[in-house]
């Protein structure tokens, strides 16, 4: 028994990897359909966009790279889907050069047949500089991006005729894998007084609660769960909702592993104490 407990306490990590792989793959193949409950920070973003008048414009900054796709891509698509269905114009851009192509893919995929490039959305792509880009866009977007990602002059896009700078943008949504929301809050939010909503990975989400509490951001979509909540609100079942089952089971597995590890630890510790006494 003691040897068994010792083996459990020092189990080869590869067995843990196999268990994790199974808990992720099986629910994807055989969905359970776990219900998703909306949280108020995600609802805040949804309600804000829902209340915008038709024809207004939002800026979506897709500041992520392929590594974070699983968490942030579904929320990007959900936000676009929401905006396009409400006839809200979308200006897309990115501060991350590795995300430039991803932004275009996301906008094209979300637009489908319901939105047209140049009329309902424009993708500006990537330009070098973080703070520089944010601040200069506050004065004149076309000075930073004279053309869109496809090389077409911005002046030729019908929807950009009424959009010169942040004053013509109702909301900035930063969907980020890194720390760019802090730049958007500090510069676009504090200096230009724009409302900012943040979408981010689950790990980073905790760091943005202070901004939420001080109302420096109007809402927060955190991780795959936040993306699943937004998908539920816009009534579309995307990869985030599908991934919730796997994430749920994986979390339960990790909790069980922690409990087992602690049980084995206490048993081993008790055994060592008894041996010492003996």
């Amino acid at each position, binding site marked *: 028994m003691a040897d068994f407990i010792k083996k459990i306490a020092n189990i080869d990590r590869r067995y843990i990897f196999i268990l994790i792989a199974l808990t992720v793959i099986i629910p994807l193949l055989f969905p359970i359909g776990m219900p998703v409950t909306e949280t108020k920070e995600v609802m805040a973003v949804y309600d804000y966009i829902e209340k915008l008048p038709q024809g207004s414009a939002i800026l979506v900054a897709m500041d992520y*790279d392929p*590594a974070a796709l699983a968490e942030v891509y579904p929320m990007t698509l959900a936000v676009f889907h929401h905006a396009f269905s409400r006839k809200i114009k979308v200006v897309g851009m990115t501060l991350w050069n590795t995300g430039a192509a991803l932004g275009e893919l996301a906008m094209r995929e979300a637009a489908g047949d319901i939105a047209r490039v140049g009329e309902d959305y424009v993708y500006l792509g990537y330009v070098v500089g973080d703070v520089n880009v944010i601040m200069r866009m506050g*004065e004149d977007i076309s000075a930073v991006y004279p053309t869109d990602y496809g090389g077409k002059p911005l002046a030729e896009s019908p929807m950009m005729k009424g959009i010169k700078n942040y004053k013509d943008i109702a909301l900035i949504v930063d969907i980020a894998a890194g720390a760019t929301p802090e730049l958007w809050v500090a510069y676009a939010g*504090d200096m230009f007084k724009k409302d900012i909503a943040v979408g981010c*990975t689950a*790990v980073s989400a*905790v*760091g943005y609660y202070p901004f939420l509490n001080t109302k420096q951001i109007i809402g927060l979509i955190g991780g795959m769960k936040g993306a699943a909540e937004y998908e539920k609100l816009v009534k579309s079942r995307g990869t985030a909702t599908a991934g919730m089952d796997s994430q749920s089971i994986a979390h339960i597995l990790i909790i069980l592993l922690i409990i087992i590890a602690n049980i084995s630890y206490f048993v081993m510790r008790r055994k060592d104490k008894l041996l010492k006494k003996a």
Partner: protein
Amino acid sequence: MILLMGLASAGSLRAQIEKRDVNFEILGTVTMKKGDILWNLARRYYGDPLKWTLIKEKNKIPDERTIPIGIVIYIPTVEAKKIEKKVEEIIAEKKAFAPVTSVTASDTPSDDGKSVTITWELSPDDDKVSQYEILRSSTASGGFEPVGQVPAKTNQYVDERDLIRGNEYYYKVRATDKRGISADSQVFGPVKPVAQWFNEKYKFIGIAAIVFCGIIIYCIYHARRGQEFFVRRIAGIEAVDEAIGRATEMGRSILFLTGLSGIGSISTLAGLNILSRVARRAAEYDTPVLIPACDPFVMVVEREIVKGAHIDAGKLDTYKEDNIYFVSDDQFAYVAAVDGLMLRERPAAIFYMGYFFAESLILAETGNSTGAIQIAGTDSDTQLPFFIAACDYTLIGEELYAASAYLSREPLLLGSLKGQDWSKLVLIAAIVVGVILESFGIHWVSHFFSVP
């Protein structure tokens, strides 16, 4: 008799005209005065006096020469489209609403002289307003161009469009309703945007910077004069020598990572400070230090630091430039390369000193699997839990910045550490005082610390 007949005739004409059915779109209304004729009204409203017949026809005027004084004439639109609204509704809609009042424009304070702030009292008919448009000109008499717009219930706008410092500008505010009817305010001006020499918004930052820097410099000054300062033990820093010793004994290398931020990041600089100490000790023991770099700029600096450490240790011949190399600036390409390096080289000690992102756990777990002793230090609060879980020792937040002082034991550096501690005490006192005052509804402290 004739007078009576005339009066009777005018009365019946008035009654006849007033019976008309006003079911057409109108441009406005005119109360007929002595001398008013339809010809002049048509010229005024249409620019074409020949259209007087339209006014006559729509108002059912039998004789345009004998229109009674005081009667209201409705001026139809040229198309004279038929509508179903009551005339009272039409008049109410067409009636111009009250413009905004008390328009003032002033130079925006604490800026670079390229913005003007315009404020006004809302129109009394603000509920009918769809937007307020702000117009600007360089003269009071005309040439006003729109520079911005704000929705109803807003009484302020900051104009930052193409202003030139020192030039004079005039402003007015145009209230517009949903049908496009607008009312302009009085013109205000001239106003000159001027650059200020001090940004008042940041005054508390300036005061805080002076206070904190002053405290640190004071402590450095006392350290220079020989005063000794007590600093508490930090297990992670004390383990640095142990880690280097372990690598030397096992005949294996040390792996040093300075994070994924560039040279501009203060945590990278802190990591480089620690690197110089570690590289010096490693050079003394002839222990190789491998440094895969994520940023070529940082790589160049790391090479200089390690070379300098070897020179200081008198072991320039053991310096190998190829141990410090650029891998990739892509996050996960870098991680893949470093993981491979860990599994192949199996370093005995691994240092993570700098700013890390999501890759921190991947690196730390891989390092753990090789059996290396791992010491991490980062100011990235999102990655600290992963390092704490996976590494043997972790320097939390500012301990990373303190590490170079601990390792060198230089009096000046220890003095600066003390200054940091005293500054923190001042900050804690301000927080406690602020919380107590806020609890009693006194907002002075929180207002002082807020940036407008």
